[in-house]
């Protein structure tokens, strides 16, 4: 089996022993079955078990392993090793407090997600059977419901870096539109009220970083645009 050495430069910080963060140069041997960055990281952890990062599904559906890879946010499990320039520079996703190494505190990110009331609101008593929805109406949810809450988008958005407490951010706004677009949801007006604010929605300056990094190929900018359109329509 052919092996290969991969060079890394990894952001290291363990508040238990490090006064401040530093970049560590470290290399690891991988073999031909190690296709993904995550495969190499798992090997790296065998070599030095103190290197810390989150991971679970290893197939791009759980959203655990978002990190900043050679300057761009992405999921380690979906990133091909062979496409990466070495040394591979790994940093935590930017703009959130670092807990340790590549692990960040996502509290603020989830707070914003929760702030848009991420659930179908419909106060009419449910029927005996399912609520009906046409295939066309259901199609409106495609490109919205698939979000895995990895935070690649929000943590590459300059507006979110500056105002993480006030700007909902692309992931949260994508979710907001997911519920607005759902014909079963009856709270569109309240949802728009909730976002009618100089910061919550309107801090988005269409910089498009979010679209560029989303590992699920979703388009938060388009969703944001649709919310803005609805606001305009409602105003006239």
């Amino acid at each position: 089996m052919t092996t290969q050495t991969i060079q890394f430069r990894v952001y290291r910080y363990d508040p238990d022993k490090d006064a401040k963060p530093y970049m560590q140069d470290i290399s690891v041997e991988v073999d031909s079955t190690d296709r993904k960055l995550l495969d190499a990281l798992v090997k790296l952890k065998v070599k030095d078990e103190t290197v810390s990062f989150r991971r679970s599904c290893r197939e791009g559906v759980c959203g655990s392993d978002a990190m900043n890879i050679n300057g761009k946010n992405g999921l380690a499990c979906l990133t091909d090793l062979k496409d990466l320039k070495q040394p591979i520079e790994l940093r935590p996703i930017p703009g959130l407090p670092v807990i340790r190494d590549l692990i960040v505190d996502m509290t603020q990110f989830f707070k914003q997600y929760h702030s848009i009331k991420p659930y179908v609101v419909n106060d009419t008593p449910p029927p005996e059977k399912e609520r009906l929805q046409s295939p066309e109406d259901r199609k409106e949810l495609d490109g919205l419901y698939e979000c895995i809450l990895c935070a690649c988008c929000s943590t590459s958005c300059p507006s979110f870096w500056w105002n993480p407490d006030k700007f909902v951010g692309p992931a949260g706004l994508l979710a907001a539109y997911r519920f607005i677009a759902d014909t079963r949801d009856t709270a569109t007006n309240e949802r728009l009220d909730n976002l009618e604010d100089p910061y919550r929605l309107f801090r988005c300056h269409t910089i498009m970083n979010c679209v560029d990094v989303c590992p699920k190929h979703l388009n938060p900018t388009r969703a944001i645009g649709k919310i803005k359109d609805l606001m305009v329509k409602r105003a006239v």
Partner: protein
Amino acid sequence: MSVPVRHFDAVIVGAGGAGMRAALQLSEAGLKTAVLSKVFPTRSHTVAAQGGVSASLGNSEPDHWHWHMYDTVKGSDWLGDQDAIEFMCREAPKVVVELEHFGMPFDRNADGTIYQRPFGGHMSNFGEKPVRRACAAADRTGHAMLHALYQRNVRANTHFFVEWMALDLIRDAEGRVQGVVAMEMETSDIVVFQAKATLFATGGAGRIYASSTNAFINTGDGLGMAARAGIPLEDMEFWQFHPTGVAGAGVLITEGVRGEGGILRNAQGERFMERYAPNAKDLASRDVVSRAMVTEINEGRGCGPNKDHVLLDITHLDPEVIKSKLPGIREISIKFAGVDPIQAPIPVVPTCHYQMGGIPTNYKGEVVVPKDGDHKAVVPGFYAAGEVACASVHGANRLGTNSLLDLLVFGKSSANSMIEFIKSEPAELPELAMADVERSIARVKRLDEQKNGTNVHEARSAMQRVMQNHCGVFRFKDMLAEGVDKILEVEKMVKRCEIADKSKVFNTARVEALELENLIEVAKATMISANARTESRGAHVRDDAPDTPETPNGRDDKNWLKHTLWHRDGNRLEYKPVNLTPLTVETIALKTRSY
């Protein structure tokens, strides 16, 4: 030693589909509930389920829960308990419709009802012809379901403890369950969660094998904790191996690929399934195909430099069909096998997928352990649901899409049992039994202080190799016996595991070491139960179980129509009868299983 203690009505360990369905029920009932999870709830492995969730809604054609029940009993190779199976299949339409009301974005039929697709083993009219029963949201049903359940829990203000790892179950001297000892991963703080009722919904343990469709976090923690607390594990010899996991990566490739005309080939390019299943060929049932693949590999006809896989070939299909019908699979193949299936075949191996056994429960989600001759005796305060539990609805072989259903049905029923139990209990919590708490703390202390011990990665790899080689798809008498010795050797390594990382801050090395202590319990239970069961049934197939008129396909109902119970203490095995009596309908009588 003093440990902080937090008090709740209910504690749920696990925030996958089962844990969150239960949490919702308890939160909406106004009970003070804590839900612990090693990962943020939507990162639980339910998120990876693709195909669908079964319910006899009959949206496209006539269907009936009784037919669903028949298919499930047959799929289980008659090892499933028929009361639990009836309960699940009857409840299915209700819980799936409820899920829709919670906001699940199911695909839709033209008339606006939930879309249903055909799936292996789903038949109408007691096995007559295929029926559309799997309710689906594209090929992302698990993701859609898990997020919908999380969202509904946000609405219900459920209290989640995210990135908290439960370490051990607490039982008092009489065996009543009082809660769990848990560790906050960010700080390594250890806290007791005391409650009137405790639910385990910790999911699967596929990581005992070297190759698995399961996530890294599927380490059988619930099973390990239960076993250490003296709860036996049921039917652990039954593991479903999915024929087509991507070789090396383990990522799942759905059966739908073979449905579209995909062919399995060996190193000589031969369509070998023609020899094993002349009629169904590549579309024979999961256990048959997996067994054939392993035979090819064992006899030296495997592919690749290590001759360790076979090829799934769809290069003969129209590229447009591949792009329109199998886009997700094409993406997985490109991403994880490095081949575009339009141009080259996909390397696949049978891959450990699902654990049919688990913590023994009844259909109400109550944990049951034999006591004074009563094999249905309830353990007060203890409940289990989802993949960690064994109700037993899947018996010796699970039917596709019945697991997501299991999460909804038993998540809900266990929560209802808990609500009833909590209401019947005195308001004051009893005095905390410290013995188990101290044992748990000592376990972590041992790990932190171990010197000159074994490396965690080495011990885990050794375990995975033993399981893969000695207790795989196809089982051999001598290999199993040897496997028992080997796994007990590995256990000694695990007991001496050492970690170099002593940090208190988000110490994932410590987490992995603690997970391994759970995995090894599951591995032992599996190997020892498999070694003892000298018949072939469902997913458990042995070379020394002869195919005779009395024992068709090696299934020996006279001696083995019974559930295994493995006790950690002394690796003792005990057996209990299969419940062949449904709740309201007639028994589905024993038959030879053929499709």
